[in-house]
């Protein structure tokens, strides 16, 4: 009467999985089909009288755009840069906050606060209050030290955006990595110490391998969000100067949505989905395999 549970064979999981899969499928497929349809049309919201099938011209318009490659490179640099900062910084912070020190609980609360701040708000704070080359805090500090204030968004546009995004996501990495760290068996560390291992060796051979999986989780979740960064760029540099801080999402916005060219915007969306799936495939190979191991 009762099936053996091993492997779950024999029990029909469909009724459980079906609702969200179906709903998500509809949510995906309706806009996707519409997007695909529009991507082959000439459809500009502002000139509705010009419409009709245009074949692949929306795609070729975007794919032959010399800016496309720059935008892709920027996307990768931005994702990679923020990932590097948050993973390395998050690991170090996690080790730090794993210790007990004076007021460590309160300090930890302060450290995780940036994660709760809206992207628009954090971009506005950084742009106007901190990085502003005349009235900003950084400029005041530079002047106090007798230095030339840095024109962040003019000279280091992509790096500045990277800093802002990294600031928002460092606490996220910290939280996950800290949780992982706290589950580490302290006896193991003690044992290693007894054997004469220094703190660096313990970190390298015991702590880091233990955190490997958590780091992969951080990378995966963050990548999903970083591929479509928009608000931070929109609020601070407007993608410039030149194309210096234009990522793929922003390029689609500039080339299509800004002039309400729905046809081209849709083609851009389709291209982005294809790219996202390539990235996803990479993630699957390198990371997700561990997840259902």
């Amino acid at each position, binding site marked *: 009467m009762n099936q053996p549970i091993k492997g779950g064979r024999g029990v029909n999981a469909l009724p459980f999985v079906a609702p969200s899969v179906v709903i998500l499928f509809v949510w995906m497929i309706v806009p996707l089909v519409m997007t695909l349809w529009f991507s082959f049309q000439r459809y500009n919201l502002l000139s509705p009288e010009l419409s009709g099938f245009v074949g692949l011209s929306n795609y070729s318009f975007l794919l032959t755009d010399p800016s496309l490659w720059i935008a892709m490179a920027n996307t990768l640099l931005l994702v990679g840069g923020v990932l590097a900062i948050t993973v390395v910084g998050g690991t170090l912070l996690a080790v730090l906050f794993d210790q007990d020190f004076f007021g460590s609980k309160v300090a930890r609360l302060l450290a995780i606060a940036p994660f709760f701040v809206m992207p628009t708000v954090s971009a506005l704070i950084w742009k106007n209050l901190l990085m502003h*080359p005349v009235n900003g805090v950084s400029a005041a500090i530079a002047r106090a030290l007798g230095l030339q204030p840095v024109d962040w968004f003019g000279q280091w546009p992509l790096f500045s955006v990277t800093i802002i995004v990294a600031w928002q996501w460092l606490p996220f990495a910290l939280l996950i990595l800290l949780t992982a760290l706290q589950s580490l068996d302290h006896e193991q560390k003690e044992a290693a110490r007894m054997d004469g291992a220094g703190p660096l060796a313990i970190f390298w051979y015991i702590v880091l391998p233990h955190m490997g999986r958590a780091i992969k989780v951080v990378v995966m979740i963050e990548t999903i969000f970083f591929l479509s960064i928009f608000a931070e760029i929109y609020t601070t540099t407007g993608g*410039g*100067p*030149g*194309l210096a801080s234009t990522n793929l999402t922003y390029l689609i916005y500039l080339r299509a949505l800004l*002039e309400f060219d729905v046809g081209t915007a849709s083609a851009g969306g389709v291209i982005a989905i294809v790219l996202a799936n390539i990235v996803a495939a990479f993630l699957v190979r390198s990371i997700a395999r561990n997840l259902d191991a």
Partner: protein
Amino acid sequence: MRTTIAATLLAGIATFGTGIAAAETLTIATVNNADMVVMQKLSPKFKEKTGIDLNWVILEENVLRQRVTTDIATKGGQFDVVTIGAYETPIWGKQNWLAALDDLGDSYDYKDVFEPVRNMLTVNGKLYAAPFYAESSFTYYRKDLFDKAGLTMPEQPTYTDIKKFAAALHKPADNQYGICLRGKPGWGENMAYVGTLVNTFGGRWFDMEWKPQLTSPEWKEAVTFYVDMLKNYGPPGATSNGHNENRALFSSGNCAMWVDATAAAGHIYNPAESKVADKTAFAKAPIAKVENGAGWGWAWALGVPNSSKKAAAAKQFIAWATSKDYITLVGETQGWVSAPPGTRKSTYENPEYKKAAPFADTVLKAILAADPTRPTAQPVPYAGIQFVAIPEFQGIGAQVGQSIAAALSGQTTVDQALQTAQSAVERTMKQAGYIK
């Protein structure tokens, strides 16, 4: 319960008073500029008069434009009154998305509205949006700094003058910069200014066949001049300064000169908002080679989407918010210096406004001179001084703006920037079918 009674009572009074069906609610979409914030603050007076309730959607300019355009183009019908500019009005009017506003009543006094401003908002002889405030551009300068340095600003400065003054007054060590100009990429930001500069250097966006002209000698000369002056005598970080950032810089006393919208004058002259209220003076927009299009023309206006089901009440609101009486109301409650500028003759004839706003005459001349039908010395197939009134211009302006910001930040040369811009614009114009 009590509120219901009060509401009914109020509605009853309103109906009695005006003879118009009450208890309607209008949704008004507007931009978060200071003058619109005042409008929202004073709007209870409109409700008192008419019994019409108002819902406000206030957003920053770009978000508002995107939201409202999507809504109107997809016939979403969310808004009864929309705030649009001189750029959108002719395009939308042509699409028949807006209700014509030629029936705002006898007391509206259309003739009182400046003709160039009306022209900006008129398509095929019909007014599609009523001007709320209008502006041109001109030169702000610091009288105190000029006096101290023994310099005199002529009534009509040339760009050669401006560069000379900027060089003399540029003292970065004291956080005092020779000139502040827009550098933030965007069709309504750096390109609004650069557009006027190109005009006065004799250039144009397109020739009569819609071929982009960005690599013409006029563009090169104008952009080289702009980059050179702003790099040498401008504030650091000019590439992220738009109108607001520059206004903040000027009003906190960091700029000796500033060429920008006349509408900011009321705020620069308001001591609550500015450190330099008593130290600022004004001159016309500088010219280089030709006079055409040296100062821009812009109006923020209120329109009624055809998708609104409450057009009658919406028109009533517009008639109120753009009337002489409204301007007087602002003058009396907020101080005359804050009265919405640039729309009506009667404002500029009002002695109280003239007294409170010493810049009034200069502004008036600039607005009357800004003729959108003759933006440049050469013939053009488009209307608009600092913009080109075609749907593609937002995207074109953004791309060219980015290229010019790249040249300003030193990432590329001016020639490279204009080359990139030219080919980007060509691509867009081909995609849109203007050129083969």
